[in-house]
């Protein structure tokens, strides 16, 4: 059971984190748009396996999920701030 939950968190949650990180970097990095997109995506590809390893390294399933959620909150916040700033401007 623990393994199944960790696997779901790793595959689904890890992808979510990778995708959010990619997006956050792509919209905020101060470079040419294409460069920012490429940098973000290259980083996302590293974030994903690290997230998977975290999910299996954490002591308990709860800790694995909480850690993942905390990591997701950072890029999600960046995206929200950036979007609201764009609306305000």
């Amino acid at each position, binding site marked *: 059971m623990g393994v199944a939950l960790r696997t779901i968190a790793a595959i689904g949650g890890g992808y979510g984190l990778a995708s959010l990180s990619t997006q956050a970097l*792509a919209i905020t990095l101060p470079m040419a748009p294409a460069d920012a997109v*490429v940098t973000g*995506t290259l980083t996302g590809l590293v974030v994903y396996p690290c997230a998977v390893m975290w999910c299996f*390294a954490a002591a308990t399933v709860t800790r694995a999920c909480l850690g993942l959620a905390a990591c997701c909150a950072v890029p999600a916040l960046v995206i929200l701030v950036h979007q609201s700033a764009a609306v305000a401007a």
Partner: protein
Amino acid sequence: MMGGLRLSMAWLHTWSGLLVGWILFLVFAGGTASYFRDEITLWMKPELHRAAPAQVTQAAAADRAQQVLAQRAPGSPRWYLALPDERNPAVKADWIPARPAAARGEGAAPKKRTRRAFGSATIDPATGADLGKVRDTRGGDFFFRLHFDLHYMSALWGRWIVGFCSMSMLVAILSGIVTHKRIFKDFFTFRPGKGQRSWLDAHNATAVLALPYHLMITYTGLVTLMFMYLPSGVNSVYPERSAAFYQDLNGGPGDVKPAGVAAPLAALGPLVERASSAWHGAAVGRIVVNLPGDANATVTLTQQEGHGLTHDLPSVTFNGVTGAMLTDPGKQSGAAVQTRGVMYGLHVGRFADPLVRALFFLSGLAGCAMVATGVLMWAVKERPKHNKKHGMGRIGFGLRLVDGLNLGSIAGLLLAMPVFFWANRLLPAAMAQRPEAEIAWFFMAWAVAFVAALAWPSRPMWRLQLGLGGALFALVPVLNAATGGAGLATSLAEGIWAIAGFDLVCLGLGLMLLYAAARLRMAPLVKKLPLAGSAA
């Protein structure tokens, strides 16, 4: 289950590696073969072995191809030309076929695009003769596509499956590094004839020795398709049109609408010379002609590979009617875009000279061996537990399934690959649907081997399949000489290195497989820990 970082990572390494190992072996084997994609294609067209086309200048080759395509592809919206280089003596031309007349009418609403097969031809740069029709085959392109598209399914599905497996592989490599205690020492450690210990040593040696390569090739492999796997960045910055992103990424003229007014296409030869002189003499590799014969035609020329690591080569676009230069031939892209270009280039390795290419090939073989020893080790480790539980020589369903999958995916594939080459030579040269028939032979051989492997996952079956595959590989030079190709005596004497190399590599692989089969005939090397598959 979690007992410390090293243990949890060992567990992750085992399972993220095992569950995708069988597909990874196919991906690794197909990718390794793809380093010699051009050579394989040439070998599979024995009629061309001795007929090296006369050397002509790139400009003359482009002019000749233009004449051929004007006849072969009238009304085509786009031509793609690959000019001759050291590995490819002919011009490779592909084109999008003309739209049916009904859809082309004045003011006709753009209809839903139907998929049309590309036209293609292999053109002798000196005479303009079509060299491709001598013997229709997918050649090395089959392994190249198999490597990331798989087969008998849509390319999209294949790419997602391969992407999932690659990411799993990346996790397996990273967790393998964490769990590994003595990276440097294991470099030099091999203890043969000791059952599970020997498998572990072999796995460590092949994995650690080529570790930079494995990490590089797995990560850069994901990079080649990363905008499909992780589209959130592209979608958020280029919300409406991802075409605009690819234009920023690759340069080029972007979308040009046809003017609907006919205008003769400028001669390609002079454009090739002008681009080459703008690049201080670097040769032109590829030409894309957009809307040939239309007043809005453009011609984009890209530099030949081999002048640097990157896959994003300098390109320049000309107006296709007046010949005016439309883009800056020396334009540099941003740092990140260039980084991606280098990673892409590293993965496909087209920059490499023969020696580096051979090293890449050897590293690819090490990758195959790493995957194979990894999945076999799981079975070897598991066996004593089963012996204890079910009695000596009897095993449970899970282990039996893994045994069968190991046998079918490793020995079966190594049997199917030479069958593909044999089918290429034994099927009639002029038969219809020839490429499909060759591919069908490949998969039939593999399917039979797989069914046999699942039914009898035993040591004699390993011996049989490895022995058969080895014999077919080892006899490839004989087959080549007997069916119209340049045999080893000819190819070595006349310096046709691509063909000689293919024959010798097949011979070497065949001898290795035969040796493995012979070793398996001996009694189990270690009585207490029998090798994989001995418990039939």
